[in-house]
């Protein structure tokens, strides 16, 4: 959108011939939303950190069940999905829609692998006696990682929809920016995972 500078509606105030910040409305909105989402994860992570210090009345402690090598691998896949996301944005900026769709699908697949890893991890924990209601830590752990997993899931839906709509020329008037905004969300979800992996899994 930002590239085509032809004014079409001079008589329309606020029609956005100018954007005071230089950012498009959609991109600015995504940044604002991500700022809000930071506070959501801030609250969840703080809750986990607080409840972790309280010990457990029954059931195992979460930290005794972590399979760090396994989670490292799935974290690595999520981080690599940021790379494929960047490649998708780069491709659509060059106007290469076909390649963009390939990278979008690759990103979504890596995200799906991460979520599958999470499902596997939850199942393993459950089988080892850590249910959602077992103790303080289990509730906090499942809600925190579950909220993050839901964010990844929504991201997969967005990426899948973009990839599917690209087929019908449906990425809007500025496909590069549409993909880039989806990318902002995706990178944010990845960054949040880096924090969660560090403070929840690695720092005891």
């Amino acid at each position: 959108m930002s590239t085509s500078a032809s004014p079409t509606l001079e008589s329309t105030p606020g029609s956005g011939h100018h954007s005071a910040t230089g950012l498009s409305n959609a991109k600015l909105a995504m940044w604002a939303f991500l700022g809000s989402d930071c506070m959501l994860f801030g609250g969840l992570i703080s809750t986990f950190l607080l409840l972790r210090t309280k010990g457990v009345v029954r059931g195992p402690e979460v930290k005794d069940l972590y399979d760090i090598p396994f989670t490292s691998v799935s974290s690595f896949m999520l981080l690599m999905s940021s790379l494929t996301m960047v490649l998708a944005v780069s491709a659509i900026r060059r106007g290469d829609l076909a390649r963009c769709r390939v990278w979008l699908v690759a990103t979504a697949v890596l995200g799906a692998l991460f979520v599958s890893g999470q499902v596997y991890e939850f199942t393993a924990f459950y089988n080892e006696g850590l249910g959602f209601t077992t103790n303080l830590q289990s509730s906090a752990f499942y809600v925190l990682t579950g909220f993050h997993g839901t964010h990844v899931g929504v991201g997969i839906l967005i990426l899948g929809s973009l990839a599917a709509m690209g087929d019908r020329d449906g990425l809007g008037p500025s496909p590069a920016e549409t993909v880039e905004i989806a990318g902002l969300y995706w990178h944010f979800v990845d960054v949040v995972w880096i924090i969660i992996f560090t403070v929840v899994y690695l720092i005891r």
Partner: protein
Amino acid sequence: MALTDERPMLELAAGDPVASPPLGVFRRPQAITGWRSWFTSVDHKKIGIMYGASAMAFFAIGGLEALLIRAQLAVPDGEVLSAEAYNQAFTLHGTTMVFLVIIPVLAAFANYFIPIMIGARDVAFPRMNAYSYWAFIFGGLFLYCSVLLGGGPDGGWFAYAPNTSVTWSPGRGMDFWTLGLIMTGIASTVGAVNLIVTCLNMRAPGMTLLRMPVFVWMSLVAQFLLLFALPVITVALFLLMFDRLFGANFFNVDAGADPLLWQHLFWIFGHPEVYILVLPAFGIVSEVIPVFARKPLFGYYAMVLSGIAIGFMGWGVWVHHMFATGVGPVTVAAFSLTTMFIAVPTGVKIFNWLGTLWQGKLTLDAPMLFAIGLVGLFTIGGLSGVTHSVAASDTQQTDTYYIVAHFHYVLFGGSMFGIFAGMYYWWPKIFGRLLSDRIGKVHFWLMFVGANLTFGPMHILGLQGMARRQASYSSGYGWDFWNLVASVGSVVIALSFLTFLYNVWHSRHAVTNDPDPWDGRTLEWAIASPTPVQNFDAEVTVGHLDEWWHRKYEEGADGVLRRRDEITYLTPVRDETPTDLSTIHLPSPSYWPMLSALALPIIGFGLLYTYWLCLVGGLLLVGATYGWGLEPSVDPDAGHGHGHDDAHDPPAGESSPAEADDELAGAPR
């Protein structure tokens, strides 16, 4: 993706026939008049009016609950309400007034006037705006369903867990409360994103940030506070919901939980919330006082900066709600200091208003009376707030009527007086009718006297040790007289609201087409009354703070201010020929915002009764989101929106006509 409101994804290539609707069972709505249009409207003005009307309805309900509380407490050993019903009454009263009255009525003003005051045609995302309203009203109605379905919430508006766990609050009331507030929280978050983008991106040429009216500024600060505070309470609400519905342990003390967790999460939201409720009211008053003092606002920059300072400092005072919980002396000392400091920017505002009034040519019309009422009553509430920073005395006052007195002076004396100042001030612009000033003055004096009668004695009651939330009291504590006075005062407040309603009814014949009845200073007075659907005919270029004033008045060579001979309004006013709307692009109505918001209460009922409903609601949500994403923000088939001639079309091959339509909602070029 719902966020790319103005950038519909399924735009067909140039030349292709445009299918409408691309995904939809029903024909896209096109009516912009008639009762049906209200359900599909994306016009920020209609949405603002709906916000305001809904909030006033909730104000009446919350007021009735307050009357019940005061009836119960009017005499010792009151028997109007059972203890259970009393708990529900004060919980619903607080929740309603905070979440369903003040937030939405301020959202009404923000919705209606921010775009006009910054010279824009609509908000940045018109359909998201409609979604905000529908999510708010469905959330509020969902919350009130509890009253019909087994009893209202009974844990106080702050809902301290674990007091609100299933053990202590076994009914469905708190579940409706949690889920309902999650919905209104979603509404406010979406609204905050929308209005922030509007303020930052949609300003007319020349409308720099420091030329924005103070009301726009204070609303912007409040939207940022909402943006960052709401997710924190959303977390708390989710945790409580998981505890209550799925047996999680977040607030389960038996499992070792810390009861302070809820208090921290709640008040990290709750204190910024106070400024969310009062800053826009400050903004309204900062618009009203200069107009009725016929002077520019004293210290505009100080006013803006102190508002921003309050916005930042508001994040550092939440623990003063928790001084009695044993958080430790260092913490208490630190938060005592921040609580004292935050009075400084608030004091700056008070003195700036006084500076504006000083030597002004005051016209004491109803809006001005309410504005001055805010200055006086908020100062009392602010001063009693400063006393809370004295931790030793605050420990005595915690959970007494002293606190009740304090926050009612701040929220009723502050926010509500500001809101009614705005009502009287902007009513002619919104409805093209003047509220009677004589009845308005009666309204003001009743409300002013009633507020002081009701909330003034509560200081004394609190200092005498009457605990807040107690359902009844025995004679002999010395509380009888002041409780009776407070109850009489609450009736006076109720009468004042009835006076307002009578004034609204009375105004039906007081039609005015005067675009500028108060000789205003900001852009909304430069257009016809009531606001035409297109807001402005042409793009406004702004050269000054108080732009409209500068367009009306000039300084002669002798340094004397004089009114210009010719004043050009920005739309046809009075009996001039209305603008031909076929040449103007407006966002098209859509039923997707309402449908996707409707999914929320369906999911809510599903969580409480049968999970199958969650599936229904979830499918509706997903379907409506895709329908929304695939629908162009401007209907290609709509009658209007196609008036632009070929000369305006972009060079061939650059974009489709549909893309040009896409502009109107504010897509930047």
